[in-house]
C-alpha cells in the first residue's frame, strides 16, 4: 500500500509517501531510529501487517517537523531515505 501522510495548503503539498509493502519485508526498520525527530512509528495496519507510518501528531505539521532535515537552503539530509534500502519513502517537497 502507498500511504500518503501530510497535507496540502495554500503554500504547497507536503506529503511523505511510504510504500508499506516494502516495510513488511524490512525486518529492522532502520528509519525509526534514523529520524532525528522520531516522526515515524511502527504499527500493525488494518490488514495485520507490521508497517511504518507518520505519527498522528506530525501529520498536520509535517513541513515544520521535517524542517531540520530540509533547510530552506544548503544541503538536505533526509536520514529516513538514506537508511531505507528498499526505497520505500518519498517526500513531495
Amino acid at each position, binding site marked *: *500500500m*502507498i*500511504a*500518503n501522510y501530510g*497535507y*496540502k*495548503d*495554500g503554500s504547497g*503539498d507536503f*506529503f511523505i509517501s511510504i510504500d508499506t509493502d516494502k516495510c513488511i519485508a524490512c525486518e529492522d526498520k532502520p528509519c525509526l531510529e534514523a529520524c532525528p525527530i522520531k516522526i515515524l512509528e511502527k504499527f500493525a495496519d*488494518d*490488514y495485520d501487517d507490521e508497517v511504518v507510518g507518520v505519527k498522528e501528531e506530525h501529520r*498536520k505539521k509535517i513541513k515544520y517537523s521535517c524542517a531540520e532535515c530540509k533547510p530552506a537552503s544548503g544541503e538536505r539530509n533526509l536520514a529516513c531515505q538514506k537508511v531505507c534500502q528498499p526505497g520505500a519513502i518519498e517526500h*513531495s517537497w
Partner: protein
Amino acid sequence: MAEVKEYWRWKEYNWKNPDINWQDAAVITAGIDVGSVSSQAVIMCDGELYAFSNMRTGSDSPNSALNAINWAMADTGLTQKNIHFTVGTGYGRVNVPFADRAITEIACHARGANYMYGPTVRTILDMGGQDCKAIHCNEKGKVISFIMNDKCAAGTGRGMEVFANLLGVSIEEVGERSLQVDEEPGPVSSTCVVFAKTEATGLLRSGWSTEKVLAAYCSAMAHRVVSLLERIGMEEDFAITGGIAKNVGVVSRLEKELGVKALKTRHDTQIAGAIGGALFAKALVEKGKK
C-alpha cells in the same frame, strides 16, 4: 420566541431490510462509524445489509456509538448479545466501547465501496464531515494507496453546513440551487472555510445571487478535492462516498473537472464506512478472531 431554522440539518433516519430475518443468519456483524459530524451503525447478516441508522454525532463518541447501534436495532428484536463481532471506525473509532476492534475509515470505506458499487471500483473519494480522502483499491476492496486531507474544514461536510446556514439554504437543497445559474462563476478563491465565509458575505453584498455564491463554493470544493485526487491518480471506475456525494452541485462539477462519471448506488453514501466495518467484522469472525 421565533423558531430558528437550522439550515445545516440533514435527515437522520434508520432502516431495516424486510427481506432478511436475522434469526436465520449464521454470522451477525456490526460496523459503527463515528465521524466528527455524523455517526452510522450498520448491521449485516451473513454479509448482507440488514439494518442501519444514520444520525448526527453527539458531544461524545461513546454515546454517539451507542445511540447509533440502538437505533439500528430498533424494532428488530436484536440485542448487542446477538451480534458476533463489532468493528468501530471513523474519527471516534477508538471510543466505541462495545467494539471488538477498531479499523481505519480508509480501509472501511474501500471495503464498503466495493460492496456498494461492485468490484470494478478502483478510485474512491470519501468526502466526509471533517476530512477528505482519496483511496485506490483492488477488486476485493483492499486499499492499494490513499491520501487524506484533514487540515481544514473547507471541502468537507462541516464546511458545507456552515455555508448552508450562512446563506439560509437547506443543506439538502444546496446542490440543486447551485446549478440554477446562467453562467458558471469562478470558484471562491479561499480554501479556508473561515475566509470563504467572509468572501461569500462580500459577494452577496456586491449583488451576487445566493445561487451564484453556492455555485462558486461548490466549484471551489470540487476543485480542491480534484487536486487531492491528482496526487494519487485517477483510475476508473470511480465512486464517491460520504455526505457530500449527495450534493449534486459538487458531484457534477467534480465529474466535469475530472472528465469521469461517478458510479451510482442505491445505498446511502454515508454508510460506506460502517458497511466496510461490518464486512471486516465478518471476515474476522471467519478467521476465528472471536
